[in-house]
Protein backbone atom coordinates (compact mmCIF):
# COMPACT_ATOMS: atom_id res chain seq x y z
CA UNK A 1 0.00 0.00 0.00
CA UNK A 2 0.99 3.64 -0.33
CA UNK A 3 3.17 5.05 2.40
CA UNK A 4 3.62 8.60 3.60
CA UNK A 5 4.54 10.95 0.78
CA UNK A 6 6.11 14.37 0.97
CA UNK A 7 6.65 17.09 -1.58
CA UNK A 8 8.79 18.63 -2.75
CA UNK A 9 11.67 16.28 -1.99
CA UNK A 10 14.16 19.13 -2.31
CA UNK A 11 13.65 22.86 -1.93
CA UNK A 12 16.17 25.65 -2.29
CA UNK A 13 15.00 29.02 -0.98
CA UNK A 14 16.69 32.36 -0.77
CA UNK A 15 16.81 33.87 2.67
CA UNK A 16 13.60 35.73 3.35
CA UNK A 17 11.41 33.64 1.04
CA UNK A 18 8.35 31.74 2.25
CA UNK A 19 8.14 27.99 1.67
CA UNK A 20 5.36 25.40 1.98
CA UNK A 21 6.05 21.71 2.54
CA UNK A 22 3.35 19.13 1.95
CA UNK A 23 2.68 15.79 3.63
CA UNK A 24 0.23 13.09 2.51
CA UNK A 25 -0.18 10.59 5.35
CA UNK A 26 -1.13 6.94 5.06
CA UNK A 27 -4.84 6.73 4.31
CA UNK A 28 -6.88 6.43 7.49
CA UNK A 29 -4.11 7.48 9.86
CA UNK A 30 -5.54 9.99 12.30
CA UNK A 31 -2.27 11.26 13.79
CA UNK A 32 0.29 13.25 11.84
CA UNK A 33 3.65 14.46 13.11
CA UNK A 34 6.26 16.90 11.80
CA UNK A 35 9.93 16.56 12.73
CA UNK A 36 13.05 18.49 11.82
CA UNK A 37 16.31 16.62 11.30
CA UNK A 38 19.66 18.38 11.17
CA UNK A 39 22.64 16.67 9.61
CA UNK A 40 24.00 13.93 11.86
CA UNK A 41 21.22 14.32 14.40
CA UNK A 42 18.06 12.44 15.23
CA UNK A 43 14.67 13.89 14.27
CA UNK A 44 13.31 16.58 16.60
CA UNK A 45 9.59 17.07 17.17
CA UNK A 46 7.95 20.19 15.76
CA UNK A 47 4.18 19.73 15.97
CA UNK A 48 1.44 17.13 15.66
CA UNK A 49 -2.21 16.71 14.77
CA UNK A 50 -4.97 14.32 15.61
CA UNK A 51 -7.38 14.59 12.71
CA UNK A 52 -7.59 18.34 12.04
CA UNK A 53 -6.77 19.40 15.60
CA UNK A 54 -3.27 20.60 16.31
CA UNK A 55 -2.57 19.10 19.72
CA UNK A 56 0.94 20.38 20.36
CA UNK A 57 3.08 22.93 18.59
CA UNK A 58 5.64 23.43 21.32
CA UNK A 59 8.50 22.22 19.11
CA UNK A 60 8.08 24.90 16.45
CA UNK A 61 11.29 26.95 16.70
CA UNK A 62 9.73 30.35 16.05
CA UNK A 63 6.51 32.08 15.05
CA UNK A 64 7.73 31.93 11.46
CA UNK A 65 6.71 28.26 11.45
CA UNK A 66 3.09 27.35 10.93
CA UNK A 67 1.38 24.01 10.28
CA UNK A 68 -2.14 23.09 9.31
CA UNK A 69 -4.24 20.05 8.51
CA UNK A 70 -7.62 21.55 7.64
CA UNK A 71 -9.46 18.39 6.57
CA UNK A 72 -7.68 15.91 8.77
CA UNK A 73 -5.66 14.39 5.95
CA UNK A 74 -3.00 16.34 4.03
CA UNK A 75 -0.85 18.66 6.10
CA UNK A 76 1.25 21.66 5.16
CA UNK A 77 4.20 23.06 7.08
CA UNK A 78 4.83 26.68 6.18
CA UNK A 79 7.97 28.63 6.97
CA UNK A 80 7.86 32.37 6.52
CA UNK A 81 10.89 34.58 5.91
CA UNK A 82 13.28 31.62 5.82
CA UNK A 83 16.64 31.90 7.56
CA UNK A 84 19.82 29.88 7.03
CA UNK A 85 19.28 28.07 10.32
CA UNK A 86 16.04 26.64 8.86
CA UNK A 87 18.11 24.46 6.51
CA UNK A 88 17.34 20.86 7.47
CA UNK A 89 15.35 17.82 6.46
CA UNK A 90 11.68 18.08 7.40
CA UNK A 91 10.09 14.71 8.08
CA UNK A 92 6.43 13.86 8.30
CA UNK A 93 5.10 10.76 10.01
CA UNK A 94 1.65 9.30 10.53
CA UNK A 95 0.18 6.72 12.84
CA UNK A 96 -3.15 5.06 13.40
CA UNK A 97 -5.00 5.26 16.65
CA UNK A 98 -5.78 2.31 18.82
CA UNK A 99 -4.43 0.22 21.64
CA UNK A 100 -0.88 0.78 22.59
CA UNK A 101 0.39 0.18 19.10
CA UNK A 102 1.28 3.54 17.70
CA UNK A 103 4.24 3.06 15.47
CA UNK A 104 4.93 6.13 13.39
CA UNK A 105 5.61 5.68 9.70
CA UNK A 106 7.79 8.27 8.08
CA UNK A 107 7.87 9.86 4.68
CA UNK A 108 11.10 10.42 2.74
CA UNK A 109 11.44 13.99 3.97
CA UNK A 110 11.90 17.36 2.31
CA UNK A 111 15.45 18.69 2.29
CA UNK A 112 15.30 22.48 2.64
CA UNK A 113 18.37 24.53 1.82
CA UNK A 114 18.26 28.26 2.53
CA UNK A 115 20.91 30.27 0.71
Amino acid at each position, binding site marked *: GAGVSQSPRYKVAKRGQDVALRCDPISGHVSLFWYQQALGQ*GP*EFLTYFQNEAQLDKSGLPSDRFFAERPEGSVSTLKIQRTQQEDSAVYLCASSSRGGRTYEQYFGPGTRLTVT
Partner: protein
Amino acid sequence: EDQVTQSPEALRLQEGESSSLNCSYTVSGLRGLFWYRQDPGKGPEFLFTLYSAGEEKEKERLKATLTKKESFLHITAPKPEDSATYLCAAPLLNSGNTPLVFGKGTRLSVIA
Protein backbone atom coordinates in the same frame (compact mmCIF):
# COMPACT_ATOMS: atom_id res chain seq x y z
CA GLU B 1 13.78 16.46 30.79
CA ASP B 2 13.34 13.14 29.05
CA GLN B 3 16.42 12.07 27.13
CA VAL B 4 17.47 9.27 24.85
CA THR B 5 21.20 8.58 24.45
CA GLN B 6 22.71 6.19 21.94
CA SER B 7 26.18 4.68 21.82
CA PRO B 8 28.46 4.34 20.05
CA GLU B 9 27.98 7.24 17.64
CA ALA B 10 29.57 5.18 14.87
CA LEU B 11 30.46 1.53 14.51
CA ARG B 12 32.46 -0.19 11.82
CA LEU B 13 32.17 -3.96 11.55
CA GLN B 14 33.54 -6.61 9.28
CA GLU B 15 30.91 -8.72 7.56
CA GLY B 16 29.92 -11.51 9.97
CA GLU B 17 31.24 -9.67 13.06
CA SER B 18 28.36 -9.53 15.55
CA SER B 19 27.91 -6.54 17.87
CA SER B 20 25.38 -4.52 19.86
CA LEU B 21 24.13 -0.95 19.82
CA ASN B 22 23.01 0.70 23.04
CA CYS B 23 20.13 3.04 23.82
CA SER B 24 19.71 4.44 27.31
CA TYR B 25 16.77 6.59 28.31
CA THR B 26 15.80 8.77 31.22
CA VAL B 27 12.14 9.18 30.33
CA SER B 28 9.93 8.80 33.35
CA GLY B 29 7.96 5.58 33.26
CA LEU B 30 8.21 2.89 30.61
CA ARG B 31 5.83 3.71 27.78
CA GLY B 32 7.54 1.98 24.92
CA LEU B 33 10.89 2.10 23.18
CA PHE B 34 11.17 2.30 19.40
CA TRP B 35 13.94 1.32 17.02
CA TYR B 36 14.16 2.71 13.50
CA ARG B 37 16.60 2.27 10.64
CA GLN B 38 17.48 5.24 8.43
CA ASP B 39 19.30 5.02 5.12
CA PRO B 40 20.94 8.13 3.61
CA GLY B 41 18.41 10.41 1.95
CA LYS B 42 15.43 8.48 3.31
CA GLY B 43 13.03 8.72 6.20
CA PRO B 44 13.32 6.44 9.24
CA GLU B 45 11.96 2.94 8.72
CA PHE B 46 10.19 1.32 11.67
CA LEU B 47 11.86 -1.81 13.07
CA PHE B 48 10.61 -2.64 16.58
CA THR B 49 8.57 -1.49 19.54
CA LEU B 50 9.35 -2.82 23.01
CA TYR B 51 7.02 -2.17 25.95
CA SER B 52 8.18 -4.21 28.93
CA ALA B 53 11.50 -4.92 30.59
CA GLY B 54 12.65 -8.36 29.49
CA GLU B 55 10.84 -8.16 26.16
CA GLU B 56 12.73 -9.21 23.03
CA LYS B 57 11.88 -8.93 19.34
CA GLU B 58 13.71 -10.27 16.30
CA LYS B 59 13.80 -9.52 12.61
CA GLU B 60 16.28 -11.30 10.38
CA ARG B 61 19.75 -10.52 11.82
CA LEU B 62 18.45 -7.96 14.32
CA LYS B 63 17.27 -8.57 17.86
CA ALA B 64 16.10 -5.82 20.19
CA THR B 65 16.01 -6.23 23.97
CA LEU B 66 14.79 -3.97 26.76
CA THR B 67 15.69 -3.48 30.41
CA LYS B 68 14.35 -0.88 32.83
CA LYS B 69 16.94 1.67 31.79
CA GLU B 70 18.26 0.71 28.39
CA SER B 71 17.70 -1.18 25.18
CA PHE B 72 20.12 -3.06 22.99
CA LEU B 73 19.98 -3.77 19.30
CA HIS B 74 22.00 -6.91 18.65
CA ILE B 75 23.22 -7.52 15.12
CA THR B 76 24.23 -11.09 14.38
CA ALA B 77 26.54 -11.87 11.45
CA PRO B 78 25.87 -8.51 9.76
CA LYS B 79 25.99 -8.01 6.02
CA PRO B 80 26.94 -4.86 4.09
CA GLU B 81 23.24 -4.18 3.46
CA ASP B 82 22.79 -3.69 7.20
CA SER B 83 24.83 -0.49 6.91
CA ALA B 84 22.59 2.40 8.02
CA THR B 85 21.92 4.73 10.92
CA TYR B 86 19.93 3.09 13.69
CA LEU B 87 17.73 5.40 15.74
CA CYS B 88 16.18 4.78 19.12
CA ALA B 89 13.17 6.76 20.35
CA ALA B 90 10.82 7.02 23.31
CA PRO B 91 7.33 8.57 23.57
CA LEU B 92 7.30 12.14 24.75
CA LEU B 93 4.00 11.83 26.60
CA ASN B 94 2.36 9.14 28.68
CA SER B 95 -0.40 8.28 26.22
CA GLY B 96 -0.84 6.74 22.80
CA ASN B 97 0.04 8.55 19.61
CA THR B 98 2.48 11.03 21.07
CA PRO B 99 5.54 12.61 19.50
CA LEU B 100 8.79 10.71 19.88
CA VAL B 101 12.09 11.81 21.42
CA PHE B 102 14.94 10.45 19.34
CA GLY B 103 18.56 9.75 20.12
CA LYS B 104 21.25 10.95 17.74
CA GLY B 105 21.63 7.51 16.23
CA THR B 106 24.42 5.01 15.66
CA ARG B 107 25.97 5.00 12.17
CA LEU B 108 26.74 1.40 11.32
CA SER B 109 29.10 0.47 8.51
CA VAL B 110 29.53 -3.19 7.60
CA ILE B 111 32.53 -3.89 5.42
CA ALA B 112 32.63 -6.91 3.11
